[in-house]
């Protein structure tokens, strides 16, 4: 959180990026030898070289900022450079091409660049809001923290284990009709699983929630003493709490997944971009 406020607070790199982009736009507009605006003019060539160097430097920064050697202030500046120069690349590279796009490896290079930048933008968006929502989500579900060192999510996991134990034990005092709902909750409550369930974080088909409904139905039909009634009440409470925790944990893993999902696009496409960029440069001189 502090890091991201930090990079947004940096004023140097946004200025540099905006000035660089404005200079490029001006050069593009004013310099058109023979009415031509493309990568083969002096301006086009310069824009191409500058863009390629920025791509490589930003990729290198991306690698470096994952190492811990650098101080946080320097890292903050690097993140700022990475973000702002990265955004300006979309314009610089388009100007380099003279806005000529077709079905070739050259256009592919630009498309990959745009994908990298857009995924980065999504990453910023995720980093700006998600951690706060993520913390609010789990901390709201905490009832009592057993140990200060435990994270909220860990505490909730422990609560779930406790509830499962209580559910299993409660069956010793309840008739067989309660076994199926309890078994449903114990065996079918899934948190996570596949890519889709991780990303959706949906609790729509939650087994515990279904179990709770079944138990509430049985509760109306149940006969027996106060003891049984108290047991069923406890079961209902446990199931409700379990459903709440499960939903909270599902949201938690969804937040965590969305926080990182962009990297699965950003990193591989960056590598593909660098490969394509080198190919683009070599090919231009292979056939020139």
């Amino acid at each position: 959180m502090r890091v991201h406020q930090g990079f947004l607070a940096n004023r140097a790199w946004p200025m540099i990026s905006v000035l660089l982009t404005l200079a490029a736009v001006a050069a593009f507009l004013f310099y058109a030898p023979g009415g031509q605006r493309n990568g083969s003019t002096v301006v086009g060539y310069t824009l191409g070289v500058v863009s390629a160097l920025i791509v490589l430097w930003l990729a290198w920064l991306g690698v470096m900022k994952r190492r811990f050697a650098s101080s946080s202030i320097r890292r903050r500046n690097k993140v700022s450079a990475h973000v702002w120069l990265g955004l300006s690349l979309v314009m610089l590279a388009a100007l380099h091409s003279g806005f000529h796009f077709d079905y070739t490896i050259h256009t592919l290079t630009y498309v990959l660049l745009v994908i990298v930048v857009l995924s980065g933008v999504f990453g910023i968006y995720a980093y700006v809001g998600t951690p706060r929502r993520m913390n609010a989500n789990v901390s709201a579900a905490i009832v009592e923290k057993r140990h200060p060192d435990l994270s909220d999510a860990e505490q909730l996991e422990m609560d779930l284990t406790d509830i499962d134990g209580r559910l299993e034990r409660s069956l010793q005092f309840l008739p067989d009709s309660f076994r199926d709902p309890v078994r449903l909750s114990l065996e079918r409550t899934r948190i996570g699983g596949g890519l889709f369930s991780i990303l959706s974080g949906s609790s729509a088909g939650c087994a515990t929630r279904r179990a709770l409904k079944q138990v509430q139905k049985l509760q109306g039909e149940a006969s027996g003493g106060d003891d049984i009634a108290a047991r069923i009440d406890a079961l209902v409470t446990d199931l409700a709490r379990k459903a709440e925790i499960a939903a909270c944990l599902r949201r938690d893993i969804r937040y965590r997944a969305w926080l990182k999902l962009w990297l699965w696009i950003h990193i591989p496409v960056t590598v593909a971009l660098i490969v394509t960029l080198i190919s683009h440069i070599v090919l231009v001189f292979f056939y020139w």
Partner: protein
Amino acid sequence: MRLILVTERTRAGSDETSHRETVLGGDEIRLGRGSPMEVNLPEIDVDYHHATVREDAGVLRITAVGENGLIAGKKRVHDLALSPGVSVRIDRYEFSSEPGRDGADHVLIMKVLPATADGRAKRREKRTLDDVLPSPRLLSWGLAIAILAVFIAWPMSSVLTRTAPAQGEAVLSDRGEDEIRAPHPIEALWSSGPLSKAHAGIGGECAACHQRPFERTTNGACLSCHATTAQHFSPQDHPHVGLADARCSSCHQEHEGGTSPVVAAASLCTDCHSALASIAPGTSLKPISGFIDDHPNFEPAIITAVTRGPDGALHPTLLPRPFPKDAILQEKSGLRFPHDKHLAPDGVVLTSGKQRLTCKDCHQVEADGNLMRPINMERDCGGCHQMAFAPAGTAITLPHADEAGIARIVRDYFDERVAEGSVTLPAAPTNRRRRIGGGDRNLAGAALTPEWASEETERQLDAIFSKTLCATCHVAEKAGQAATASGWLVHPALLQRHWMPRARFSHKSHQGQDCASCHAATQSQAASDVLMPQLAQCRECHTLEVGEEDPLSAFLAGGHELAGKGDAPAIDTGAIAGPAAKPAPAECITCHRFHRDTTGPISPAHAALFKAARREQ
């Protein structure tokens, strides 16, 4: 019944077994999940009251309560006597019996088997993207390799397997003139931009131009098709201009779309021609930096005299260029012609009445649309100016440009009259403007002798040549010893067909314009007027330089277009400017050719190959 319950518990992963003995009493011992049961089996798959153990005929008998039953070996049973050696299982609890001891009737042994890691065991679901997605590193490798394979390796495989002609070898392309080669689908992925329309036929045959990797497109590749393309100037005459290293493609850049890779920008020429003296000292050419700024005044090829050669052909004498300072810009073509009379607003007088003439009635554009068709007297003038010799009701047409023929026809006519011995009184004139002689003469009563015929012929010819027919348009003189039979010699007329032979001009592309907007014919009283427009008149429309086609940069550059118009002086020819025309290009090659046919081919070797190939066909 007293019963000792021995609980044997083996922990998973351990050989140690714990024993615990409990004494139970009662007729029935209930087994089940429920807490009130005497033997509590806290497993979810065990029923609340799963089974009951009773004593039956000295042995323990176990009877299932619910439907789930008991498992004996591999069978499911509901009721079983636990004789020694028999064991039965409920979930993970295995029961057997032993004879009673220590005052108990029976010993019931309950082995608690270790919990199996089945579905019941708590399963840890996949909760992070790392669990469900391939690692970014793996994806990176995969994507990079896929791109290299599709975009580099595949096309490269076709590039590396073909052969190219040796460096500097003159080879003609095997592509037919209008043949369109299908684009290579994979190599097209490398194209840096669309080919121009002119080269679209090459399609995706990259090797047609890009013969060897990492080599700029060679002239040989261009010349393999453009074998006969001419030089800009002859290198022999311009030793100070190095053309040895000039590459076609440094000017003709492809892969930028458009109609053709011809450079239209004036800078192609003016880069050198704006300061030509520094490149070619002693040049007679004036420096020029653009049509709009400092194009020299037109110096058209003006005919100052026409002579007839011994072969009868006409030879013009031209005003020397550059024009002498005191030169009078008058064309002496030998023709008398007042444009103003022909274009009189109220028309020309014909027998049929007055008729307005337009330029097109006499002047037509040639089929190629460029120059005007040469004037042909019979076709273009003869409609009105008939060469009619009609002395007395006859209508004999005399030949144009044949003095001897005219003389013969006239003489023959009067000789025939003498032979006939009579002459008919002349009929009333059919065309006031076309009659012969000064007036109708009554020949009746005259003696029809050969002397009379000679005299009359002479008189009529004098009239035809000096007053009526020929003299309308030509100057004729009677020479004593004239070469012609008539004794008259008509001065030949030769109209200039191409005032600016080094420039290309297309009348067709100017057809939207009124003729008079360039040619001030309505005011011209004499054929000696050079009715060519002034440079300033061209500049009225020809204002567009490359780069200004881009409205943005034209705006930013301050608009050469306006400056060009401001420079042009007002035209005093009056009433000629047509509707405001669209801006037209003002580049050098708008009017001038770059590769001029008179300078010889760029590559004599290719031209020779091309000619040889033509001969073979």
